[in-house]
Every structure is written in structure tokens, then in C-alpha cells.
């Protein structure tokens, strides 16, 4: 009996089936919990799913690489999903054209704030250089941020984690912050969330309304473009040491 279970485990732990199925099951469970709590920002589905999966993998002693063999099929869909963001974006084309000036100024200031404040706070509190270079692109969507981190000398896999944490933070905190600052225009809400918290912020924004989501998607795309062009130039200034 025990050897039979052992054999099955050996099969499952070597096949991508388990990692993939587990990801989908856990995520749907997390969405169910989140809905039961009426989409409360703290009950973020990514946060719940990641916490449950990390606990399961740690308890069973399964390495991340083994899990990822299966989960990569989900990870792969980030590409086509990014392309698909063109559709909600197109639906807001009219409003977008009217706001293009203010959007670009807000994007530039927001993008600089995201990278600059993260590196400065990290430096002041004594983070290592590798961590600082990995922190800088953290407001940009995962695939772009990993590319930037590699380019400027960070650790791409650490950046991926910091990106996800940033996304969760924004998705969890944005509504409270907007209430505090009395910001109610869905375009403004979406755009700021997209600049700071990329795809996870965008996923949250789509929960609020389609227009909020479209502006978050726009901000995410533009911030990806801007940060990848700007960060290699700004980073030496942020890392400058006197003497």
C-alpha cells in the first residue's frame, strides 16, 4: 500500500500534470474565497494562491523547478494575454485621445517615482546592490521587468517576485488610497494603478470596471516601454556614491 502510494508520487512529481492541475485548482479556490469575501482587496486571489502553493510545495519538499515544469503552461499565456490588452484599450480610444497630454506627463512622473523611491528607500535602509538593481524595475509587468533586471545587473528571478509583491500591494491598497485622496474618475484610478502595479493592478482594475481596467492596461503597456528605455540611463544616478 505504502509502496504503491510511493510509486504514484514518483510518477506525479516527475510529470507536469500535477503542477498545472494544482495551479488551476488552487487559483479557483482562491477566487472562490475572494468572492465569498465580496472581492475584498485583502482577499487577493494571487496572494491566496501563492501562499497555498508555497506551503504545499514546502511541505512536500517539491523544488520550484519541478512545479514550474507544469505551471509554465499557465505562465506562457502571459504573452497572448498581453497582446489581448489591445482590445479593451481600443474600446477606450476616444477618451484616450482626449487625454493624451496629461496621460503622458503623469506616466513620466509616475514611472520615475516608482523606480526612484524604491531604490532610494532601499539604499537608505541598507539593501545590497543586487537587491537594489532587482528592485528598480518592480512596477513593470513581469516579462519586461525581468528583461530590464538582466540588462542593468539585477537578478531576474528576484525581480519577478518583487514585481508580483508590488502588484499585490497595489491591488490590495489602491481603493483605500483613492478614498483618502478623493479620486473617483475611473480613468485616473485605472491609469495610476497600472503605472504602479502593472498586470495584477490591471486585473484588480477590471474587477472595478471595464474603463478602469482599460486605462490600467494602457498605463501598464506604456510604463513597460518607458521604463525599459529610461532605467538604464537613470540607474547610474540613483546608485551614485560619493568618493
Amino acid at each position, binding site marked *: 500500500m505504502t509502496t504503491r502510494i510511493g510509486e504514484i508520487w514518483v510518477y506525479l512529481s516527475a510529470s507536469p500534470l500535477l503542477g498545472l492541475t494544482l495551479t488551476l485548482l488552487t487559483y479557483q479556490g482562491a477566487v472562490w474565497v475572494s468572492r465569498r469575501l465580496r472581492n475584498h482587496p485583502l482577499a487577493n486571489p494571487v496572494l491566496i494562491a501563492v501562499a497555498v502553493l508555497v506551503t504545499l510545495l514546502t511541505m512536500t519538499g517539491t523544488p520550484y523547478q519541478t512545479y514550474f515544469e507544469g505551471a509554465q503552461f499557465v505562465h506562457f499565456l502571459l*504573452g497572448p494575454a*498581453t497582446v489581448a490588452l489591445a482590445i479593451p484599450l481600443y474600446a477606450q480610444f476616444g477618451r484616450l485621445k482626449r487625454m493624451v497630454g496629461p496621460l503622458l506627463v503623469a506616466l513620466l512622473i509616475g514611472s520615475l517615482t516608482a523606480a526612484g523611491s524604491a531604490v532610494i528607500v532601499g539604499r537608505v535602509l541598507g*539593501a545590497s546592490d543586487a537587491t537594489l538593481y532587482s528592485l528598480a524595475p518592480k512596477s513593470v509587468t513581469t516579462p519586461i521587468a525581468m528583461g530590464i533586471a538582466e540588462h542593468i545587473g539585477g537578478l531576474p528571478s528576484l525581480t519577478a517576485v518583487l514585481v508580483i509583491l508590488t502588484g499585490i500591494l497595489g491591488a490590495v491598497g*489602491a481603493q483605500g488610497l483613492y478614498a483618502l485622496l478623493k479620486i473617483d474618475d475611473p480613468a485616473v484610478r485605472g491609469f495610476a494603478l497600472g503605472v504602479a502595479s502593472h498586470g495584477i493592478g490591471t486585473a484588480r482594475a477590471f474587477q472595478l470596471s471595464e474603463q478602469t*481596467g482599460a486605462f490600467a492596461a494602457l*498605463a501598464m*503597456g506604456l510604463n513597460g516601454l518607458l521604463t525599459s528605455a529610461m532605467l538604464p540611463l537613470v540607474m547610474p544616478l540613483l546608485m551614485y556614491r560619493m568618493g
Partner: protein
Amino acid sequence: MLSAITLLLLFQLVGEVVTRFFALPVPGPVIGMALLFAALAWRGGPSEGLRKTANDLLQHLSLLFVPAGVGVMLHVHRIAEEWLPIVSALVTSTFLTIAVTALVLRGLHVHEEQQK
């Protein structure tokens, strides 16, 4: 649905080729998004099938970040060692960025609307 997925993959593929050919710092899918947007503007909007497939895919956008998020287990050691600067940097920067971006955008936008 099949043709819509094929179309999305095709635009991603063209994006990947373009970004590599011109050695751009931007990932292929983002170029793919820009190209699809241009195509939609040229054609006057998406077909019903493409609209529906994109909607289905984007509804579960959060799911797609889970595999990368689980990667946190690879960096437990570093995060435990540098938790204070990392957590402070993430929290400060995320909320400051949202607030600054939203206030700048609202300020400029309201100003423009009033001038009209």
C-alpha cells in the same frame, strides 16, 4: 475561439521577431499589443470572436501571475535577510507612485477640461 487565439499568438510572434530584429529593449508581447492596437484602429474594431476570447483571457489575468509568484520560495533567504529595506521600499514606492500619478493626472486633466 481558435482563430482568435491563433491571431493573438501570431501578433505575439511578429512582436518577438520585430523586437529581436531591431534589438529593442521591449518584450515581444508588448510590441504585439501595439501592433494589434494599430490593426484594430485601421480595421475599425475587433470581430465578435476576438472580443469574446480577449475578454475570457483577461478575466483570469491574475491566474497567469501565480507561477512566477510561487518563485518567492527561491528567494526566501535573501528576503529574510533584507526584509526591512525590501518591504519598506515596496510599500513606500507602490503607494507613493499610485498617489503621485493619480494626483498629477487629475490635476492636469481637470485643468484641461476647464480650459475648454
